[in-house]
């Protein structure tokens, strides 16, 4: 299965669908060998290696998934082209960070749509590390509930998987976990600093 057998519309629909549909769409993108080879080839030509290329390929799919779910993908270009643009953006950012460039990034041939929207979907590394640190205090149960919630599991499905008595209990547990996370954030100045105020 690869994205050649899926239309762009099916990919978008899958990514915004239920967990099973999401899995199929993600797998279709992940197993698109031609797309993967293109991205790895691009990275290798621009001072990266094969492993860098594979990392960029995976990060690009994750970012594409996020953009589609957030309504950021407008469908003006193909999914493959959009993914290639995201991958180039990711690589140019990484490469320029390594070279300690302080001037503006030079992004070549990247779709305007990618340039304008993609920054808003990227979670800054510092913030990501802070989140991972807080998640260690959240507990496995909360992490599982919130992952399923974000993966578009229904409250009934979450209740069934977590052995709750009903969907209302699942909903309350999800809310409680989020509030627990929020308390950690406000309790520390270094975390509060990361809020987008």
């Amino acid at each position, binding site marked *: 299965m690869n994205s050649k057998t899926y239309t762009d519309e099916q990919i978008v629909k899958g990514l915004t669908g239920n967990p099973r549909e999401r*899995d199929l769409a*993600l*797998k279709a993108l*992940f*197993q698109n060998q031609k797309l993967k*080879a*293109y991205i*790895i*080839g691009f990275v*290798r*030509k621009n001072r990266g290696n*094969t492993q860098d290329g594979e990392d960029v390929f*995976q990060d690009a*799919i*994750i970012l594409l*998934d*996020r953009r589609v779910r*957030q*309504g950021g993908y407008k469908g003006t270009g193909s999914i493959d082209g959009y993914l290639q643009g995201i991958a180039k953006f990711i690589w140019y950012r990484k490469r320029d960070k390594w070279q300690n460039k302080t001037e503006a990034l030079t992004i070549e041939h990247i779709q305007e749509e990618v340039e304008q929207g993609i920054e808003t979907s990227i*979670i800054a590394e510092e*913030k*990501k590390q802070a*989140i*991972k640190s*807080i*998640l260690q205090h959240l507990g496995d149960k909360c*992490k599982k509930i*919130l*992952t399923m*919630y*974000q*993966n578009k599991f229904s409250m009934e499905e979450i209740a069934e998987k977590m052995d709750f008595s009903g969907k209302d209990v699942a909903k309350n547990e999800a*809310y409680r976990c*989020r*509030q627990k*996370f*929020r*308390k950690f*954030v*406000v*309790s520390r100045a270094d975390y509060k600093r*990361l*809020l*987008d*105020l």
Partner: protein
Amino acid sequence: MPFLLVVIVWNIKPEPMESKDLFEKIEAYLLNKLSPTERQAFEEQISNDPKLAENVALQRFELDMMEVLLEEETKTKFDQWTKESATAPPNKPQFNRWIILLTIVLIAMVSFWIYNQNKSDQPSSNTIAPSEPPTQQITPEETPIENKTPESNDTPKPANQPQSQESTKSEQPIAEQEKTTTADNQLLATAIALYETPDLLQGTVRSDQANSSAIQAAFQAKAYQKVIDLLENAQIPIAEQQQLAGHAHFGLGQYPQASQAFESIISGDDPALSEEVEWFYLLALLAQQQQDQAAFQSTLRNILDDPEHKDYEKTSKELAPYLNQ
């Protein structure tokens, strides 16, 4: 004083939970589910209310947290799918490729049989002895062109072959010489089937104009031994000599010499020319039934790892099945 303490403690406490309605309104705003009008109104509200702004920022942080959780789960799936594909059984297309190769071998064998039936005046001893293995080691008489001493103007020949037979053999195009294939020589048949003489000489041989037209004529006439002889005295860059020699040796069925000539280009400092010959290097190694597996696998992997390589597509199509995983 105690009243003041209470006020200070009150302000240190975490923000009180917002109402469920406000929570869901903020959620809709952050997930782009508000209409443009509602969005604009809400943004105005946020800009006028610092506490609301802080709640929005906190809730945005929560959504980022859930994105990080989802990202970790997705990467776990990627690892799982990678492992699944690594342990998956071989693809059927590889089986089809073997069928195609066997068909090529059979066609080559039938063609050779027909040629032998039609041949009238050539003694059988002039053809390459079937018992002679195609994987010839380099003998001192068949050193590649760059190792020839200036005094040696004679054509290098194996000691056990008469000169007349060698010159007769050497002037025959590869297609006529190498039709001898058996099931054991299917790799050789594949290499020959995949080989196409490149149009090398346009703009290649520049510096020695007197010889270049003779070399060109000999190459086009598939008089490969003559090409090698002419290259001896040609004043052209070594890398171009090696390229021409490599193809001439291949044409003569001298695959060790061909691969050595191509390999000297690949290990040189001209990446463009290196890319020109890597495909032919692989064919020369393949024709030797992959005597140098390490070199074959390394070069094959280099091309397959580089989708921008000029011969990436045909290498993927024809030689990828030979890649050891």
